[in-house]
């Protein structure tokens, strides 16, 4: 049997990986444009519902729904970016917060209207069910799959940002937007692509999350808090920061629920406020 400590650690890391996929897009877009997007988890929820609808109503295999979840969230987010978001890039924090909270409210009501308020189940393929034994330790297959996906996403992102032309433009725009514009980089277009990518990843995260945490219309707010905590603790615009913060939060959340259920979410909020007061830009933030 799995010793509790290792089991909690494993579950925590898997949960952290899920949170990482959900939050990394917000981290990059916040670092790039300083745009406070509180509707980020609404895109994740959209991905989740796309995946569920395709799997349950159209009998698609679960794995085939994942790219569609990514694509749907990316397309919708770009449409919103073109119509609403881009007018507020230079507006105050307050206006950005209000617009995106408004969008999140709308998404919650629309989801409740279309899908009802009940938690939706999803059927994962045979391959991902159960657990495998490794050195006498039982590891959930789905959680292993989750860790694999998150690691693949991280490697793709890091490689994309480090070694491609687009990645160089994104880094330049994050470091110094004015200078990047001066060098002829189309920062607006770079941002739109990054925004689509980040929201797509959120959509993917939403689809992956169903098996672990379920999906109901309040997803857009419940996980927004976690995502914001990871982004602000990890530091805006830092992939490594989000990765470490996500593991930190994932493990402490699972461990907190296992060892000290009476504390509830207290621990995580406390960690966030403490880290922000110690380092206002987050653990890996530069500003």
């Amino acid at each position, binding site marked *: 049997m799995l010793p509790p400590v290792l089991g909690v650690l494993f579950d925590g890391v898997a949960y952290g990986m899920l949170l990482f996929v959900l939050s990394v897009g917000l981290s990059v877009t916040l670092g790039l444009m*300083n745009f406070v997007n509180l509707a980020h988890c609404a895109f994740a929820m959209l991905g989740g519902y796309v995946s569920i609808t395709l799997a349950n109503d159209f009998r698609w295999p679960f794995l085939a729904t994942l790219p569609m979840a990514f694509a749907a969230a990316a397309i919708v987010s770009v449409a919103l970016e073109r119509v609403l978001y881009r007018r507020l890039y230079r507006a105050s*924090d*307050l206006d950005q917060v*209000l617009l995106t909270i*408004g969008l999140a*409210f*709308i998404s919650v*009501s629309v989801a409740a209207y279309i899908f009802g308020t009940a938690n939706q189940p999803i059927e994962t393929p045979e391959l991902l069910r159960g657990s495998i034994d490794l050195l006498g330790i039982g590891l959930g297959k789905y959680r292993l799959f989750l860790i694999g996906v998150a690691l693949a996403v991280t490697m793709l992102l890091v490689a994309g940002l480090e070694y491609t032309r687009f990645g160089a433009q994104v880094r330049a725009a994050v470091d110094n937007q004015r200078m990047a514009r001066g060098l002829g980089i189309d920062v607006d277009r770079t941002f739109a692509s990054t925004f689509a990518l980040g929201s797509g990843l959120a959509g993917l995260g939403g689809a992956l999350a169903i098996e672990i945490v379920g999906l109901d219309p309040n997803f857009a707010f419940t996980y927004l808090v976690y995502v914001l905590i990871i982004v602000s603790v990890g530091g805006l615009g830092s992939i490594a920061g989000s990765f470490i913060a996500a593991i930190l939060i994932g493990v402490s959340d699972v461990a907190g629920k296992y060892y000290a259920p009476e504390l509830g979410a207290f621990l995580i909020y406390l960690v*966030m406020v403490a880290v*922000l007061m110690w380092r206002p830009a987050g653990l890996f933030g530069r500003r």
Partner: protein
Amino acid sequence: MSVAATPQQYLQAQSRWHPLEIAFWLATLLPFVLFPNYLSLASQIAITALFALSLDLILGYAGIVSLGHAAFFGIGAYTAGLISKFGWGEPLTGLILAAAIAGLVGFAVSFIISRFRHFTLIMITLGLGLLAFEAANRAHWLTGGSDGLQGVSIWPVLGVFKFDLYGYTAYAYSLAMLFVVFLGARRLVNSPFGLALRGIRENWVRMPAIGADSRAHIRKAFTLAAAVAGLAGALLAQTTENVSLESISFQRSADVLVMLVLGGAGRLYGGLIGATIFMVARDQFSGIAPQYWYFWIGVLLVTVVMVLPNGILGGLSALYTRWRAR
């Protein structure tokens, strides 16, 4: 309006009572005559308006975005509720104590608040608000947790006016408090201190250069706003004789932000008008389909941000200016 020659004249011109203001306050007495069945709602509106006014002091005037302002509302509500539960049901002293405790906590928190700006500030206020909620939720032995605080019983106001079922006393009491605090707030924002706050909102870095320390001003404004929010919470606890977890929740923080922005932040009447419209609309809508209420709030928020950046009052005043210019 002529351009004022000196700052003193400018502030004096600002603080003169406009006939519309007098009409507004006379209109607040109408529910006693016109809608005697809705006095409980009217009392809730007055309390919410007071809460919105407190947020206006820091958000509208000093430009501090807070996503956790309900923490102080909740602290006030629980303080007032607990005082009465433990045997002292006198309302006015209860109010003062609740406001003082919320103000004290606000003073402590203001040292954190005044150090940060922008995204970090939003996250810290959100985190502190959630911490306060969790604390109230976990301290079941003290607050009753999700069951709410039971056993609150309030003595008659001034020893004479009992809290009745129809809400006559509740509305008169809440309205009187709203008016008194409003007078204070009006005096405050038309003082040099209020002017300095507006300066901080416009440029946080430049204000210290002309001799107004931003952080000290923000600390004072935040403490005051926390005390007023606590007062509003205490009023709710006393008039409903019950404190629920909802009074300290994120939902309340978000709602009050919506009201203020809808009415127009940075104007004293913005929060009052916004709270009235919001509460009346919610009362009407929630009978039909409560879960879709937030759909309309969302649509409203997007519209206000996109079309009416200064809220309803801002839009009206722009229309008025244009009409005068013709």
